[in-house]
């Protein structure tokens, strides 16, 4: 069973302007979730908004039976979610979808996060901490105060590089510039990226250019979240090589091999 109609809110905290982290008590989810998978949350029992909202699993504490999601308030659903308080319950489906493929032993991993894209990558970082791979984290945002969770990322001691659009912290420019250099210097064997579409597109192009493997966490409007409604599709290369196929972000994704995505 992956449907929990009454998951308890343990706490909710604002981590940056308009950015919240919600901790839920969900031992089954916590025990089985893999980095890159997501939760499909019904924010209200009413009809406003009607649909569930998907959020990546951002962290899991198996001891305590907790999972967290990290999200930005962008509309009605996330605004309502931000009002949830300790002790209230949410209707949660999950973990859903296909997560990241962990690097092979010895592979150097690079995690590229744009803005709220750090959400699933943080969980990946947590998981990689148990392995021996070397890990780069490239973190981008528009301005310094929107760089999320720097201290907490630091705790895992990756090689951390930062970029902001306005140069208010770290490199000035898009985070993909950091990746470009990393790849040029052959410091990454496997790349994981999550962020705005334009960023992911650049990442995919860089990976192709350097012949490096990587995975992208995509977003699309979702209905069911389980593969039944075919609304969340993205364009991917088709298996038989002809034309293309629409694949479901909720079931065949949200994580896709970068080279499969057609932009």
């Amino acid at each position: 069973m992956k449907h929990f109609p009454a998951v308890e809110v343990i706490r909710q905290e604002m981590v940056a302007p308009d950015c919240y982290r919600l901790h839920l008590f969900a031992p089954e989810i916590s025990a089985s979730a893999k980095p890159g998978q997501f939760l499909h949350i019904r924010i209200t029992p009413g009809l406003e908004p009607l649909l569930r909202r998907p959020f990546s699993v951002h962290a899991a504490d198996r001891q305590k039976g907790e999972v967290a999601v990290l999200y930005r308030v962008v509309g009605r659903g996330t605004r309502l979610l931000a009002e949830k308080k300790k002790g209230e319950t949410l209707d949660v489906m999950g973990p859903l979808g296909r997560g990241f493929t962990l690097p092979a032993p010895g592979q150097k991993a690079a995690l590229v996060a744009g803005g709220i894209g750090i959400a699933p990558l943080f969980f990946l970082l947590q998981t990689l901490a148990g392995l021996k791979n070397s890990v780069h984290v490239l973190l981008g945002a528009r301005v310094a105060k929107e760089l999320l969770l720097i201290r907490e990322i630091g705790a895992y001691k990756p090689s951390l590089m930062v970029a902001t659009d306005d140069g208010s912290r770290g490199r000035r420019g898009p985070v993909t510039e950091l990746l470009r250099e990393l790849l040029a210097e052959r410091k990454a064997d496997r790349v994981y990226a999550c962020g705005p579409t334009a960023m992911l597109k650049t990442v995919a192009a860089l990976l192709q250019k350097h012949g490096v493997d990587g995975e992208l966490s995509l977003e699309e409007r979702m209905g069911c979240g389980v593969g039944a409604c075919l609304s969340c599709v993205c364009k991917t290369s088709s298996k038989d090589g002809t034309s293309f196929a629409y694949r479901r972000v909720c079931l065949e994704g949200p994580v896709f091999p970068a080279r499969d995505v057609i932009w």
Partner: protein
Amino acid sequence: MNKPNLTVDIAGLRLKNPVLTASGTFGFGSEYAPFVDLNRLGGIVVKGLTLEPRLGNPPPRMVETPAGILNSIGLQNPGVDCFLAEHLPFLRQFATPVIANIAGNSLQEYVAVAEKLTGASGIAALEVNISCPNVKRGGLQFGADPSAAAQVTRAVKKATTLPVIVKLSPNVTSIGEVARAVAEAGADALSLINTLAGMTIDIRRRRPALGNITGGLSGPAIRPVAVRAVWEVYQAVKLPIIGMGGIVCAADALEFIMAGARAVAVGTANFLNPGATMEILSGIERFLEENEIGDINELVGIAHE
């Protein structure tokens, strides 16, 4: 009191209860198997099938509207052959009738799909979709016109020994007239309603929000339109009706039944609540018990009396 009877007969098919899934909202069953005991469903209506695989429409394919959603999937499906080979075997495991929803670009295609499904074991009935607003052909052009609807019905009836359920569109001047034409052409049952044609515009981009421009409206917003359609068709023809459109709880399902539906299908509600079908089923049972009604069939069309 004994447990009330929930068994209903539709088109010669005996369903253990009147709660079905609506085509296109429940995939091929396997997707929801982790969430729903498929054995407890009255029936499973699978995603619309065509002769060849279909890519479907470009995304975005879904947008929320007040108490509803618009979708423009465009009948993406792997084709009837792939369904038979890869999806039907899974469904055969369950003691629940599988109803195949079919569509086509032409009469010939409807016939070809119907023939392929007729041979297969594990298909209980065909639901003929002549009402999809999201494809250029193979949908509404057959459902909008009573005589075209009758033609498809006759052709499919001839091509199959399975019970034929024809699925009607609300996007017509008189759904009763289409129902009569389809009934005369030999349909064994009717299902209604398919989605209402609709669209929204993203005012920031100044463009339609859906990749396909227009889509089909479903969900609670359309329920009053659907109940009225069932009411009208119940008066127009004697065929059993499968009612759907915005059902999210047992009370909604009972509205359709009292308006004349012998069974109901749950669509959009699955997305909000994967347990919707099960809750609706137990809610109907509770209503019957509380009101000391021994048989669900006593309620069918009772609001007309």
